[in-house]
């Protein structure tokens, strides 16, 4: 099928089999390998991307479902001038990543929520719900929680 994905503001006309999942099309057809596959059954969240601004599991969505829609991946998180997203800085500052494999998924879950509501970092319950969305095997999560608070509330330290 012919589809068009707008990924990180760039238009990608693509020819894909209906069965190809969004994650594979992003990684292989769009060559955006920052979206990782950790479980391919919707649990771990490493593959989380934003579709029309909403965080979804790109392993449980078909690329054809996204025809004409807008997708944002970790590669599209930097600002227009190439400056890092506050969450990217905060993750580093809080040592919220070790192997880095799950990191793009956590960043996108948090970035989607933050774009929808810039005050989310002020609500500990909602931050917790974000961290509870994905799996990390290295950090023990607490640094990720602190990083989301830090990245959401510039100037604050959790």
């Amino acid at each position: 099928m012919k589809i068009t994905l707008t990924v990180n503001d760039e238009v990608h006309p693509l020819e894909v089999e209906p069965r190809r999942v969004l994650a594979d099309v992003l990684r292989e057809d769009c060559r955006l390998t920052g979206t990782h596959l950790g479980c391919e059954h919707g649990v771990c969240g490493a593959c989380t991307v934003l579709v029309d601004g909403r965080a979804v599991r790109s392993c449980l969505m078909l690329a054809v479902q996204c025809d004409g829609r807008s997708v944002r991946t970790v590669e599209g998180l930097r600002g227009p001038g190439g400056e890092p997203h506050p969450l990217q800085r905060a993750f580093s500052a809080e040592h919220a990543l070790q192997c880095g494999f799950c990191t793009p998924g956590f960043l996108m879950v948090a970035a989607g929520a933050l774009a929808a509501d810039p005050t989310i970092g002020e609500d500990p319950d909602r931050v917790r719900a974000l961290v509870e969305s994905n799996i990390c095997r290295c950090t023990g999560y607490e640094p990720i929680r602190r990083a989301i608070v830090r990245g959401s509330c510039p100037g604050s330290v959790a």
Partner: protein
Amino acid sequence: MKPARFEYTAPRTVPEALAALADTGRDVRVLAGGQSLLLEMRLQRLRPDLLVDINRIAGLDRLGVDDGMVEVGALVRHEVFDSPWAVPGPLGTLLSLAAPNIAHPPIRALGTMVGSLAWAHPASEWCAIAAALDAVIRLRGPEGAREVPARDWFRGPFETARRPGELLTSVRLPLLGEGTGVGFIEHRRTHFSFAQVGVAAALTVRDGVVVEARIGLANCADRPVRARAAEQALVGAEIGSTLFARAGRVAADQDAAPLAEPYADVEYRRHAIAVLVGRTLRQAAEGARQ
């Protein structure tokens, strides 16, 4: 694993969808939220021939209230019910108590309530609530529209009364009367695990006596269960921990038919059902305006 090959169509109208679904010689599946369907396809436990993606059909995302019922369209996502104000009154509270138990936010952003009813997982939160409230499932098919009450809907694990070619268009749930107390509690091993037991309850209490009781059980049998024997044990009796414990016992012994699971044999599961029903009733009673 990757999904096996299939054909895909994304109709714009319900009649177009029904036309696609009419191809009953093949394995045709409806793709709504897809959070269970695509998972099963990824595991190649399902290898459908054709997917009918209904996400581009206008109007199926309608959530409306009329006649003491809320009608939830086939494309209303789980996450809508995270908020207790999405649906008025105690039903809205009940749905918002249950919603956070469904997977996690990115899954709730896509998955749908009606899709859960179609999928009929024995541990589904929405299915337990539908059973408790005897929700009405609305379908359209080759022979026109029909409605099926939840009591006739669930036929077994992942089995429903849906006929070939039919599309679930919405579900209607009764708005619970003001003053009805609601409760929803799940018992699970971690945040990501399926519920070992889930209980939904709605209690109407007058002068300290139960007037009406609704109890739905998730993962307590091979299908969602309405705990009618426990409900009967409650109606007309004086609320209190003794009553709730007794109702829990009745639900576990008479209404539930739990199967053994890893880390939860039948003995433990019956015990946990009794405890959880008691606790959920207590939660509901606390919320009931007496």
